[in-house]
């Protein structure tokens, strides 16, 4: 791991020398039109975002409405009342499509919240470690190594099981490990910029340490932080689904894609649609996030490529 960090210092030293104009955003938009995969990602993600924000506009039926007389009906089923079940019904007779649409909420809330919480911890510790160096750096680096060595899913499962299954605890259990990704990359970035003239200049002109860190160092690490956030958002969504799948996610009856999939395992011999559709949507969502993340990395910070692969 030590070698990786050394490589990053050199790379970011190069990156820091290139001036970045404010027109990057406009360039990025223009570029997006030339990249169909990223454009697909954007469109699909907007749809899922809308599902999460205003699910009642899209959901044909009530996702909580149970009817045991029509359980495990295949896609395309029409009940006596004339309700159409495009993706079939689950083991309690609830509409699969409506539950998938409402399930977008938990996935996106947990994904975004975990990214923000872990980003906050990781950026702070990464800046502190990189800027102050010495003992502080050594301590933070050992904490990072330790967090890396503990099996992630086992730790997250234990935390949720011990603290109780709830939205907050799921977010914490995921963020408690993922901050290290930010911390490692940002530590490297800070190491490479902290001796740059305008920062030594700011120090010499009497800026307080906090001001130097906040006004001069922080802006330098924002673009790698944004890239990491998008590239890891997808993985966090998968981890949330995995926790729900294992029964330690946001508790039922709240619809979650992972929770639906765990029933899919149970009824896999008789009702393939329960295992198929939620996972398909989950995969397309993560794929969209990743495609957008790749594009964002290439446009914002091409030097990140090696780090994040």
């Amino acid at each position, binding site marked *: 791991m030590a070698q990786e960090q050394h490589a990053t210092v050199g790379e970011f030293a190069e990156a820091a020398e290139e001036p970045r104009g404010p027109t990057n955003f406009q360039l990025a938009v223009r570029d997006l039109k030339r990249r169909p995969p990223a454009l697909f990602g954007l469109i699909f993600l907007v749809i899922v975002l809308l599902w999460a924000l205003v699910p009642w506009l899209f959901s044909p039926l009530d996702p909580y409405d149970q009817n045991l007389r029509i359980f495990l009906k295949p896609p395309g089923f029409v009940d006596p009342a004339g309700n159409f079940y495009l993706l079939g019904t689950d083991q309690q007779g609830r509409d699969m499509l409506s539950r998938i649409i409402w399930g977008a909420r938990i996935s996106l809330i947990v994904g975004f919240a975990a990214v923000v919480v872990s980003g906050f911890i990781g950026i702070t510790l990464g800046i502190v470690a990189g800027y102050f160096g010495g003992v502080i750096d050594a301590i933070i680096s050992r904490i990072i190594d*330790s967090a890396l060595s503990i099996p992630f899913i086992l730790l997250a499962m234990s935390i949720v099981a011990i603290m109780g299954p709830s939205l907050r605890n799921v977010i914490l259990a995921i963020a408690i490990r993922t901050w290290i990704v930010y911390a490692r990359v940002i530590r490297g970035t800070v190491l490479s910029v902290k001796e740059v003239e305008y920062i030594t200049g700011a120090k010499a002109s009497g800026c307080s340490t906090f001001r130097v860190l906040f006004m001069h160092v922080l802006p330098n690490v924002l673009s790698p932080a944004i890239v990491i956030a998008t590239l890891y958002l997808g993985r966090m969504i998968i981890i949330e689904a995995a926790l729900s799948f294992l029964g330690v996610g946001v508790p039922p009856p709240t619809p979650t894609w992972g929770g639906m999939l765990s029933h899919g395992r149970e009824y896999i011999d008789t009702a393939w649609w329960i295992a198929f559709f939620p996972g398909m949507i989950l995969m397309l969502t993560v794929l969209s996030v990743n495609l957008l993340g790749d594009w964002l990395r290439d446009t914002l910070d091409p030097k990140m490529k090696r780090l994040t692969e």
Partner: protein
Amino acid sequence: MRAYIIRRLLQSLIVIKVVLVVVFVMLHLTGDPADVLMPEDSTLEDVAEFKKAMGFDKPLHVQYFNFLFGFGKSKGVLRGDFGFSFRHELPAVDLVFEHFPATIDLALVAVIISIVVALPTGILSATFRNTWIDYVSSIGSMFGQSMPNFWLGLMLILIFAVGLDLLPTSGYEGWEYIILPALTAGLYQTARIMRVVRSGMLEVLGSDYIQTARSKGVSEYLVIVRHALKNASIPVVTLIGLELGVLLGGTVVTEAVFAWPGVGFLVIDAINNQDYPVVQAAVTLLALIFVGINLIVDIIYAWLDPRIVYG
């Protein structure tokens, strides 16, 4: 070199120390381990007695000391004693060791499959850059990194067990049982190794000595096999070592899908039954193995490539 190894050893010891603190703190997250360990309908007297027997009535630092060095009948985790599994009435460590071989089998087969798939595709993809081979494998690796592996597991069951009735879906009673779980567990690693092989090869293929070899008239096949592969393989070796460490602790979800009798399955069962000594033992042992593999990989790396700065 020797100074580097000694420093890495010391760092590893510190890491293990921190892991032990985390494993200890885990039970104290709610403030009172008796809450976590005792059934909800226990009487107050039972709880008080239990706390006394386990030493949970002592101050926290004393409890940590007891956790490490032993208390009552326990010999302490430093001597490999994590206490008894409440459910199986066996030492927690023994239970973990009992389930370990199945997890090792799964992780090894998964890594072998991912190497066999990822190495050639990564090399071909870099060699025939921007051709259909490259596009297909890049799209494949993108999907591989985006697909939740438990969903892949479910789809494999649907196709090969429910649909074609070819392979078993749960347990471990023979070699045919390992195929679907290993494919599932190795998915992410395959995609990752593929990307790293591809970008490593691309980097090497662009370097001066490859240009020299080509201009000398060395055939393209020899350029790739003799010159490029050798140098592109160093980061790949490191990555494969690390992925094996990650996989040993990361097959939990796969084990859940296929009822695979490994450590992950054991831990899921233990968590559902509040059997935390087993969880603590498993987390600690897996972390120890990860640290060990990491140490070995770093030392091999330093030995393979003496130019690296020892940091």
